């Protein structure tokens, strides 16, 4: 090798060593790094169980990333020495910012495909505002997501998995002492459990049912104002909202005098909607004899009548099929009747008897047609049975005539060859 090449070689070696040193020294964003030695769990072995299943440790993110310190060191003094960045158990504000260091960093989270607006949202939420004002009684990331045992949101074991979430919220919002400091009720979860959403979520395990975050949001959790409630209910109950916006209550709602859904249906305690609401809720604002209550009564009457007609016609069709009548065309017709009856439920939110009567008329006329058709079929069955009477009349006439002929033949003496009276 000549002198020139030797210099280049040397340069390359120095350069590589330098790179290695830099890589060794820096501590941030090393997802491609081979798993480090984690000396922390040697002493803090109780933490290891929690950490083991967590999503962070699966991704190679260990103690030092939140607590600081040097996990490569083997003694406590060296591991937690100043300069290692050791902070011990972080304060709530530190937690928010520390989680945000990764989770609000687009370049870091890009690799995992996770959104990065949680911290920003959190800062707009009741929890976030209070925390950054100095109140440490409120929830921060770890209060909901866990500390060492954090699982992805979609994991059924996660404390924020839809089936578990309301219980997580209840940890604080069910604590009377804590809630009384903010003049908030502490029985919401109990109430929610009796509601139709709570039953659907907690008993029927329907993860599509509304829970705390569906209406209140999560990272940006605020109690929705009177106007906004309709928006949250309407996220799922779209047709009801659409029709409500066509009703007379809209102006009252915009003026804040009337909460779109809650005024009649309630919020946390919402039960399956029933016609009983017509009797119970209208009179909260309207007089029972007034024109408004009367209109409500008309709608109620139409709903009840339509449901009753559907029920009775369905029973008639079923009974006919048991009697042996072929009812396929009637059953096909019943499908569209059922559609109209079900569609009356969202439509009634228009609070307009005229609108509701459109569907009501269709239901009444269709069921009348079906009833008529079934009765016609029953009647033709009856006619068949009636036809048996003339048939048997003819048969009896024939039998009598034949028998009479038979007797006649045997009465004639010419029939017997040997003259003796014979009976066969």
């Amino acid at each position, binding site marked *: 090798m000549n002198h020139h090449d030797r210099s280049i070689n040397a340069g390359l070696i120095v350069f590589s060593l330098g790179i290695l040193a830099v890589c060794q020294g820096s501590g941030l964003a090393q997802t491609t790094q081979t798993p480090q030695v984690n000396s922390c769990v040697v002493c803090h072995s109780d933490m290891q169980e929690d950490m083991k299943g967590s999503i962070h440790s699966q991704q190679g993110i260990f103690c030092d990333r939140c607590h600081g310190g040097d996990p490569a060191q083997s003694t406590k003094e060296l591991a937690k020495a100043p300069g290692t960045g050791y902070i011990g158990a972080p304060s709530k504000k530190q937690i928010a910012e520390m989680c945000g260091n990764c989770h609000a960093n687009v370049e870091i989270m890009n690799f995992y495909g996770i959104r990065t607006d949680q911290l920003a949202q959190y800062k707009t939420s009741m929890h976030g505002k209070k925390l950054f004002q100095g109140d440490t009684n409120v929830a921060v990331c770890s209060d909901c997501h866990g500390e060492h045992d954090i699982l992805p949101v979609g994991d059924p074991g996660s404390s924020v998995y839809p089936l578990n979430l309301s219980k997580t919220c209840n940890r604080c919002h069910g604590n009377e002492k804590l809630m009384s400091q903010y003049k908030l009720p502490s029985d919401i979860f109990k109430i929610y459990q009796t509601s139709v959403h709570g039953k659907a979520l907690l008993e029927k395990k329907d993860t599509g049912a509304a829970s705390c975050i569906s209406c209140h949001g999560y990272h940006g959790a605020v109690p929705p104002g009177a106007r906004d409630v309709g928006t949250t209910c309407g996220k799922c109950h779209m047709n009801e909202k659409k029709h409500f916006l066509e009703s007379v209550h809209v102006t009252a709602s915009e003026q804040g005098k009337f909460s779109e859904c809650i005024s009649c249906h309630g919020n946390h305690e919402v039960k399956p909607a029933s016609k009983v609401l017509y009797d119970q809720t209208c009179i909260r604002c309207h007089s029972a004899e007034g024109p408004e209550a009367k209109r409500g009564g008309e709608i109620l009457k139409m709903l009840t009548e339509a449901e009753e007609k559907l029920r009775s016609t369905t029973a008639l069709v079923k009974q006919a099929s048991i009697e042996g009548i072929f009812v396929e065309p009637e059953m096909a017709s019943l499908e569209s009747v059922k559609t109209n009856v079900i569609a009356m439920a969202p439509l009634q939110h228009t609070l307009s008897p005229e609108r509701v009567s459109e569907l009501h008329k269709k239901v009444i006329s269709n069921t009348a047609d079906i009833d008529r058709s079934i009765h016609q079929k029953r009647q033709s069955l009856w006619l068949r049975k009636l036809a048996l009477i003339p048939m048997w009349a003819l048969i009896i006439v024939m039998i009598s005539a*034949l028998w009479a002929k038979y007797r006649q033949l045997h009465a004639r003496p010419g029939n017997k060859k040997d003259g003796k009276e*014979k009976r*066969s």
Partner: protein
Amino acid sequence: MIKGWIKSWFADRYDVDQIEEVIKGQVEKPLPENISWFHTLGSMSLFLFVSQVFTGILLLVYYRPTVHDAFESVKFIMTTTYMGWLFRQVHAWGANLMIIVLFLHMLRTYITGSYKKPRELTWVIGAALFFLTLVFGFTGYLLPWNQLAYWATTVGTEIAGAIPWMGNFIKTLLRGGGAVGGETISRFFVVHVIILPWVLFFLIVAHLFLVRYQGIATMDPVSPGKEPKLKEGVPFFPDHVLKEGIVFFILLGVLITLAILKPFDLGEKADPLQTPFAIKPEWYFLPMYQMIKYFPKLVGIFITSLGPLILVILPFLDRGKERNPFKRPISMMLGIAGLLLLVGLGMLGAVAETKKNFFGKTYEFDIYGIPRLIKANAGSSESLQPPQTPPK
């Protein structure tokens, strides 16, 4: 006048007098004095056969023998065609009545000893006619392709498959494949609609010819030589024909009444993936079906096939000379025993695997037809004997 003109047209070409004499001979044929109302059963069987052919042809116009269409086509016949429901019900009830009437006709023949010499062949053909009628019933039952049909055919062909040595071959041949399916419908359809009708037709012609040629048996004992021809007696027409007319109208009335008052359901379309509980064959197969349950497989099949065999070779087993039932105590006792066995097995088969109420108490019958008392409150059942497991 026209009648005369037609007659002379034929007289110019054919020996009309001879034909007329033959016809007159048949029409006025003398029947023995013991000719009774029970002797109308044979003609009633023939009437029912004709009725089945007639209604069957009508049904054929709209029926489609494929898995996809069979059920729908029967539904179409029952609901949309004019009076289609009547022809279908008459055909279904006619089949059941035909088997009953045939059986009664056989019973009459047994009791009057008419199967003995010289009429052994007539009896053998008659036994064949009876079994072929059962095959008619079996093949026809599948054609509506409803749940009942599909599963009864599956069970029936399974039992055929249990015959030793040839069983699997027979089962596959019957089914047209491994399981009951479109091929089965095709085969059963061909047998039911063209093969059996013609076979039965020729057998009936042979049977009737022999009956007419040899004459109705009397109550006299079997003659040592050839039987003398009857010279005098009750004229077939009008005496016996009038009896047949009366019975015919009653039978017709019963048939139509059953068709209207107790129509057969169409049920659900066949679903190979869903077996209904406690499949049973049609009532006329129940005695045999029940009998098989009580014995291990091969023994059961052997014993059950003894029945038909004995029936066919009866004239050669019973060589007694007497025809009069009162002079044949052993035959009568055997006959009654056989009848009781059939009825008993049939009833056991009907109640097996069902729950029935008697005098306020509920009984649950197992597959052998043995009842267990069930207490009124659900969940407890008091058994009169320990639960049995079927032998394998």
